[in-house]
């Protein structure tokens, strides 16, 4: 569905069901340069099982208008504005990669609004490889190739997509190229690189939090994810073997199972 936030048109997938304000809200926040489509194997399930879902395209990404936001802090404030714009007082947040930085910061800034936090492939800081950052800022498609290489584990490199017939690396690459590399991926990478408040923000989080990490994640390795999780009181950690940074697609069923158990327990729906 489309709606306006700060005067700009925003697109969010509602998981194939009409948006229903009576149901509890789950907001999904994608990673650098990507779009709402990375969440398709989680959002549809929740939308059909008692929740209202918004898998957002961040400003300037996917089908949303406007320019990419330049800092993680701005993105965190924007998520809070999204909750206001759709007429809710609270939501459950799910983030992937850069989306983890955004949702951590948002939860720390708006503790009364956020009820649960789920982090996938998250870390307290995501310093960028300088070569990768330079390629993206030059608009070089090689940046996407490198990102797809590093972001995928065995399932991405060999194949074995949970949806028959889909090929991970090329699909991910196409999502990352859906808008100009300079205007989306590069801006996101720079925002990640600049963000230094992750560990401090994590210490402020007092809500149920889940971290899903993967053993073959080169972008946000398990030990970095653990470091972050250790700072969040009562945080749960689930580690997936033989899987890379794109766990939400590479091991979509496992991710959904863990996420389902966590959200339905900590943020149940009556619908």
């Amino acid at each position, binding site marked *: 569905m489309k709606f306006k936030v700060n005067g700009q048109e925003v697109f969010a997938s509602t998981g194939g069901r009409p948006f229903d304000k009576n149901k509890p809200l789950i907001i999904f926040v994608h990673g650098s340069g990507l779009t709402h489509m990375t969440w398709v194997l989680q959002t549809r399930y929740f939308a059909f099982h008692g929740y209202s879902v918004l898998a957002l395209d961040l400003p300037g990404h996917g*089908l949303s208008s406007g320019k990419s936001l330049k800092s993680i802090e701005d993105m965190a404030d924007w998520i809070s504005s999204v909750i206001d714009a759709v007429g809710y007082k609270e939501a459950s947040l799910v983030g992937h990669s850069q989306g983890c930085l955004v949702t951590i910061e948002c939860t720390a800034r708006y503790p009364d609004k956020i009820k649960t936090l789920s982090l996938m492939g998250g870390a307290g800081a995501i310093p960028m490889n300088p070569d990768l950052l330079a390629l993206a800022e030059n608009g070089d498609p090689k940046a996407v190739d490198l990102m797809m290489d590093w972001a995928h584990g*065995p399932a991405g490199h060999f194949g074995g997509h949970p949806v*028959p017939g889909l090929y991970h690396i090329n699909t991910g690459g196409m999502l990352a190229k859906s808008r100009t590399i300079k205007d989306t991926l590069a801006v996101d990478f720079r925002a990640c690189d600049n963000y230094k408040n992750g560990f401090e923000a994590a210490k402020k989080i007092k809500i149920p939090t889940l971290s899903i990490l993967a053993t073959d994640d080169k972008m946000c390795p398990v030990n970095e994810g653990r470091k972050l999780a250790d700072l969040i009181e009562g945080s749960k950690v689930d580690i997936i073997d033989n899987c890379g940074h794109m766990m939400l697609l590479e091991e979509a069923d496992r991710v959904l199972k863990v996420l389902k158990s966590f959200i339905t327990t900590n943020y149940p729906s009556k619908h």
Partner: protein
Amino acid sequence: MSDKKKGPESKTYKFDTLSLHAGYQPHKNAGSRQVPIYQTTSYLFDDVDHAAALFNLERGGHIYSRISNPTVGVLEERVASLEGGTAALATSSGMSAIFLTVMTLCEAGDHLVVSSQLYGGTVNLFRLTLPKFGIKCTFVKPRDTEGFKKAIQKNTKGIFGELVGNPGNELMNMPEVSKIAHDAGIPLIVDATYQTPYLCKPFEHGADIVIHSLTKWMAGHGSSMAGILVEGGNFDWMQNDKFPTMTKPYEGYHGLSFAEEFGPTAFTMKARAEGMRDFGPCLSPQNAWNVLQGIETLSVRMKKHCSNAEEMVKYLLAHESVAWVSHPSVPDHPDHALAKKLLPNGRGSMIAFGIKGGKDAGVAFINNVKLASHLANVGDTRTLVIHPASGTHSQMDEATLKFAGLSHDMIRLSVGIEDIDDIKNDFEIGFRAARKPRLVSNQ
């Protein structure tokens, strides 16, 4: 190894490695090194909720082998990886891949612009069968690039063509035609059966959907029928209002918009969810496995096919019984320069040539070669010959034959990977018979 000056390089697997490994992980299949053949119709649901989730496309997985099958899925991912596509859907034959593509793209009242030089069965589909579904086509000669533009109407939903036309070897200027298609907000669909992704990756030249008859070079051994459609993932279905079945809520899946939900894989998702569900031209797991065996050696075979073809071109050009030779490797072929650009790894192994003495000589030639097989296929490891005017394209009338660039003296040759001397020796027998058709036929 990364070069400090050049910076880091992507280490995603390359073509020959993908040909052997893409789409499959042994540790998820009981450690079986070879892809297992899942000879089953259906798949257990964990519970009612799991079943509902699969039917609603909430999660990935298999329901029924008409829709998807794990062995077929490996083939689909492998071909998608080789083509540089986002997704693929395998079908029971190349023709069913074309039909499914058209039915996913079009509704009654729609129109397609189609290259005139196509496999005879494809011509009949577009000319005679699709109009029965309310889908009309305008044929344009493959070299008439401007003609593609002029033929586009308000209700045109795509341009379709073979990159190198069957059987006349005329090339469609894919980069230029793709610009025309994209300026009109419609996709370019390319049947790249003759090329395989080893010779050409059409997505790199502007195609949006690629189709293969996998029966041919991809499987390569003349054993199994199969087809596939592959999606490039770059076409924006939401850029205009031409594709409501891709962009508007679809009743068949609780108001799902394929374009919104699946973006770069939307076309394949729709072709499978709707097309396979409703038409059902599914590929058998056994045939998918056979094709996978062929793909493992694709680059090795294609090199030999192409080198043998170039040898045969030289041989035919110098032969006294040959009136003309059409192959994009011939320097005076009208599309030689374009072929060099689009087919850098080889110009393919399909040759068309005219035999002196016309139809009778052609018939004598075909009837007397011993090693070359006379049959209605191409892309076998073995050398194949046919006289299109009396075989593959025999259902066309005289005018259609002419428009499709066919003549009665034309022999279509699909060069195999036998020893080149043996192929030439066999052709000598054929040519001798062609020079004395009456004498030979009386023997």
